[in-house]
């Protein structure tokens, strides 16, 4: 069981690293927003794996909270990028 979890977390870490690469490289603000959104989803996924590992449901509200923040953040950021892009 531990091996499975290690593999799963390894894949998620690799995915996180790739997403960070896109986040740093851009080139446009919107690329970064997409990358950041994916990164938040990856955090939620990793937290879900954590919950599964310890078979402990008490952290599940955390998932909902992070997902909510990610959603609000992405929406706000993309609207801001749109406004900037149009005026600048």
């Amino acid at each position, binding site marked *: 069981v531990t091996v499975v979890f290690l593999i799963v977390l390894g894949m998620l870490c690799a995915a996180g690293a790739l*997403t960070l690469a896109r986040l740093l490289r851009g080139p446009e603000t919107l690329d970064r927003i997409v990358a950041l959104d994916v990164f938040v989803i990856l955090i939620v996924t990793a937290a879900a794996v954590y919950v599964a590992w310890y078979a402990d449901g008490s952290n599940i509200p955390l998932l909902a909270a992070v997902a909510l923040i990610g959603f609000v953040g992405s929406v706000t950021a993309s609207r801001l990028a749109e406004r900037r*892009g149009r005026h600048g």
Partner: protein
Amino acid sequence: VIRDVVSAVLLLAGAALCLLGAVGLVRLPDLPSRIQAATKPQTLGLLLVLAGTALRVELESAVTLVLVGLFQVITAPVISQLVGRSAYRTGTGAGTCSSSTNWPTRCRTTVPHKLRDVPLYALGDVEPEIHPDAYVHPDAVVIGNVTIGAEASVWPSAVLRGDDGRIEVGPRTSVQDGSIIHCTSREPTIIGAEVTVGHNVHIEGATIGDGALVSSGSVVLNGATVGAGAIVAAGAVVSPGVEIPPRRMALGVPARVREGYEVPEGVYAHAVESYIKRGKRFRAELRRIA
């Protein structure tokens, strides 16, 4: 035990999908396709991981997990729609959208994003095809079946109307201010590479060879051919069907080829170069201030 195995498979599959999505995010060439990578595999990956997790916790928590999954399914399309719309409105990524199949049909797949303020018109389904390295001034008008090559330039008040037939402007060619390019259903207008079409020229259904100079105020009519490197002098009218041989000069109304004169090679190369440079400069520096 079976539950553990199913859960493990779901977790592994979900993580693999997340990784796949991240690979796509890095490797895909432009924003619209990256949005795809960011939403579909990620969402499915998360749902699989949540399902795998739900199998390992008590029922109450599993219900909350379902809610988290639902939330993701609802928000992912909202975010990708918003990002896509922002990209579309600001022109981000549209310059490369010919390499992507993911834009809605409203996206002019062939139009570089720098050209968003240029009056480009589709006629029915036919859209102008403009090379990303071409420069079209925002006061020029380009309609329908028009192809503009790399580093070509089209200047203020020029009109390229590809309605009945086809118009081709070759690479490194300039179509200067006030020139009118039209075509007919029988005769496309083909302008070659490194051609200089001067100010206030009218070309209709004619073929202009590479490196030719069509000087200001001249008219080249239906079915006429101007050879490579030839010159149509200012104000000349090349009558329908007339053929100007390569490297010769045509003058007058109606245009006649000047006897015993051959245009020296490359005599207008500097003009071609200067218009390519001019196009780059305008692209970088032109600002509308009122």
